[in-house]
């Protein structure tokens, strides 16, 4: 889900700059996706970059620091990459940082259990710079699978420090810090050698480039890129050097000589790239034969679980059951705390009211503060906080476990038929946390067309600010009562609404890929990481602190002024009618057409800054315009809704509109930033709204 202060942008850069003074060294943290890079980063810096057990978690470059021996070291976490031959925006960002970013050291984090594949990236980075530290992470996990890595031997083979680590358990962190602190630049380290005549061609070109590049860029690295002929990256190199390298007569002549060597051996220009990849893997295999011991197979137990989670008969049912179970626990668990919080807030409100009266505050002020601001705040907290506080940690546990990539795997066929990318399932899952984070997460999708589809459809799944609205609507109105039976029904109803969101996502993607974003689905790279036992305590603390409180804070910041606004609107009269009645009255015909009413639509409009406030604003608006005296508990609020003409159809339409309407302000701003286009931002608002209007109007007219 990735909803943290960092992932929504604010404070992302500041944390790294917080501590004063220049750093002694800057180390970049590179690695394949899903090797625990973010865990290493957090362990070193003490920051809380959100981690999850799936590829592509780090979509933003994060910076932090650590201190050792009185010196400060800067650390830059760059996006995960399988290779420096970039095939996605993230990989291009990683490659550009390693090639041009000017870090003193690159720490390459590797998975001990898949070293042969991980060394592909490490050996490519060694072609850029010899100033590398290899951090072989997940040593504990590999050991469980019977795999051991001789890191001392690997270090002597590569000529760079190699640190064994189990970052989740905190092992190897201090050794890595020390290795960074003790690092001295070295003239050379291990270099991957390619089979003749490729090596001969590379050497010839390398020597010619040496003078031209003047140490600003590795000659061998540049020679390889020239031979490979990746035009886009060569343009970036030109930009960095400040002159067109390929047009330099010396370089062009050397490149031609190198190509001739290859041509004479029967190797065409197009084949060179392939030969370079196989060459690196041949080196990697050789290194692993020397330094890695253990079976290469997949664990039996892991395979049994995976088959259960993906087989035709069980894959989707297990997924739905898990979803319903999470909702059941959320609804059942949130019930009591909601009522308790509500009662506490009520009592505190009354005490404050008495206090204000005692100090002789004017009536209008007391009313505005208590019946306005305080009451909306208490609704936001009591209705929204408990479900969030229960749902977040559970969702994070599934995420940590490595279940999300399996869901993406199971649903890939659906997304493929919709003309979209299977990874959209992951960004959709991030959307459950926060649609703004989901939109940023779409950077993991390689194709621009599919990325836009994912961005435009992200808000069709309810975020954590919206699904408590669904819970509130369901438990306050649709399925009342507190028995286990009604909780089961309520969680099934919630699952239904979520599935409606997923169906809407697929439908909208299908429509987009056949209209404004036409094209063939590309092939995503989806890695299925091994299951990892989540760190339960840390997950709970982090999801409460990072996500729940952050979201609640944002909601409260919006709720307080909204409460005041509603109270004023309900009490200020223009031409004999209160402003609130005027506004809701004007929207009423539209609301009725959609199976709702003017108050509900007003609440959705006022909820644009934070959706969490929609239900509280709604309740306030009803209460303010009637003779509302407050209720004993949250669940009793159903009476208020009924008194204002609510039926089951009203509740269903409001729930559907909750899933299908314009994104919140934060998400819209993020979409604008990510797409750089007002046109797509407008479409991202119009598309879900059109779907919501259609569905609600249909429901209202068929059942109303």
């Amino acid at each position, binding site marked *: 889900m990735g909803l943290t202060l960092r992932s929504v942008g604010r404070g992302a850069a500041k944390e790294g700059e917080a501590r004063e003074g220049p750093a002694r060294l800057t180390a970049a943290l590179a690695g394949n996706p899903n090797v625990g890079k973010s865990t290493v980063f957090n362990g070193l810096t003490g920051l809380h970059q959100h981690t999850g057990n799936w590829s592509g978690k780090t979509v933003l470059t994060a910076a932090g620091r650590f201190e050792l021996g009185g010196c400060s070291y800067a650390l830059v976490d760059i996006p995960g990459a399988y290779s420096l031959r970039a095939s996605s925006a993230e990989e291009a960002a990683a490659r550009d940082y390693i090639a041009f970013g000017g870090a003193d050291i690159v720490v390459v984090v590797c998975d001990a259990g*898949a070293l042969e594949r991980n060394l592909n990236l490490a050996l490519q980075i060694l072609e850029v710079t010899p100033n590398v530290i290899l951090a072989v992470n997940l040593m504990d996990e590999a050991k469980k699978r019977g795999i051991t890595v001789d890191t001392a031997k690997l270090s002597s083979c590569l000529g760079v420090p190699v640190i064994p680590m189990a970052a989740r358990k905190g092992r190897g962190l201090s050794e890595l810090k020390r290795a960074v602190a003790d690092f001295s630049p070295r003239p050379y380290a291990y270099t991957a050698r390619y089979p003749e005549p490729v090596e001969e061609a590379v050497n010839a070109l390398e020597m010619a480039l040496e003078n031209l590049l003047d140490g600003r860029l590795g000659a061998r690295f540049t020679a390889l890129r020239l031979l490979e002929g990746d035009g886009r990256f060569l343009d970036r190199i030109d930009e960095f050097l400040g002159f067109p390298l390929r047009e330099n007569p010396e370089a062009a002549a050397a490149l031609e000589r190198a190509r001739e060597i290859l041509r004479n051996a029967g190797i065409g220009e197009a084949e060179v790239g392939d030969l370079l990849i196989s060459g690196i893997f041949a080196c990697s295999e050789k290194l692993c034969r020397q330094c890695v011991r253990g079976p290469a197979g997949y664990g039996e137990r892991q395979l049994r679980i995976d088959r259960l989670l993906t087989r035709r008969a069980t894959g989707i049912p297990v997924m739905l059951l898990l979803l319903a179970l999470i909702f059941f626990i959320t609804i059942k668990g949130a019930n009591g705390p909601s009522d308790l919080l509500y009662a506490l807030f009520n009592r505190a409100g009354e005490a404050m009211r008495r206090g204000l009266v005692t100090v002789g505050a004017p009536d209008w002020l007391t009313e505005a503060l208590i019946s306005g601001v305080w009451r909306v705040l208490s609704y936001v907290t009591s209705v929204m906080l408990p479900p969030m506080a229960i749902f977040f940690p559970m969702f994070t546990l599934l995420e940590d476990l490595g279940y999300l990539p399996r869901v993406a795997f199971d649903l890939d066929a659906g997304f493929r038929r919709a003309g979209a990318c299977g990874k959209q399932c992951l960004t959709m899952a991030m959307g459950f946390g926060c649609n703004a984070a989901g939109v940023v997460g779409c950077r993991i999708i390689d194709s621009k067309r599919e990325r836009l589809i994912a961005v435009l459809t992200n808000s069709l799944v309810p975020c954590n600010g919206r699904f408590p609205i669904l819970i509130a609507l369901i438990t306050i109105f649709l399925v009342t009562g507190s028995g286990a039976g009604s909780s089961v029904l309520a969680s099934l109803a919630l699952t239904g609404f979520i599935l409606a969101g997923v169906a809407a996502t697929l439908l909208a993607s299908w429509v987009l890929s056949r209209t404004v974003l036409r094209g063939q689905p590309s092939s995503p790279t989806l890695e299925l990481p091994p299951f990892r036992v989540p760190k339960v305590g840390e997950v709970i603390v982090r999801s409460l602190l990072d996500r729940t409180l952050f979201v609640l804070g944002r909601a409260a910041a919006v709720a307080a002024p909204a409460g005041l606004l509603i109270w004023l609107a309900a009490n200020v009269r223009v031409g004999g009618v209160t402003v609130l009645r005027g506004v809701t009255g004007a929207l009423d015909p539209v609301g009725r057409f959609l199976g709702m009413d003017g108050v509900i639509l007003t609440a959705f409009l006022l909820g644009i800054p934070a959706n969490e406030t929609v239900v509280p604003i709604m309740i306030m608006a009803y209460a303010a315009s009637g003779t509302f005296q407050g209720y004993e508990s949250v669940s009793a609020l159903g009476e208020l809704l009924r008194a204002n003409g609510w039926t089951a159809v009203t509740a269903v339409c409001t729930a559907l509109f909750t899933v299908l309407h314009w994104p919140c302000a934060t998400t819209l701003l993020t979409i604008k930033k990510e797409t750089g286009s007002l046109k797509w931002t407008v479409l991202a608002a119009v598309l879900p709204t059109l779907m919501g209007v259609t569905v609600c109007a249909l429901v209202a007219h068929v059942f109303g």
Partner: protein
Amino acid sequence: MDRSLFSLPEGSVGVVRAIGLERDARRRLMDLGLTAGARVTSLFSAPSGDPRAYMVRGSVIALRRQDAAAVTVAGV
């Protein structure tokens, strides 16, 4: 005997011979470790039979049918 990776039965192992895809898609798969000579195990399939999960060089990757069908492997 040479066959496509997609037709490799669940649980069996093949050795990569060639990848019949255009440049970028081919290099993408190669960078994940699917170079000539690499051992690949077919592990399990999604509910609809596509994509499928394969183990190569210690990690598990999902490949859609169109990609897996373009990879030629030799049986072991």
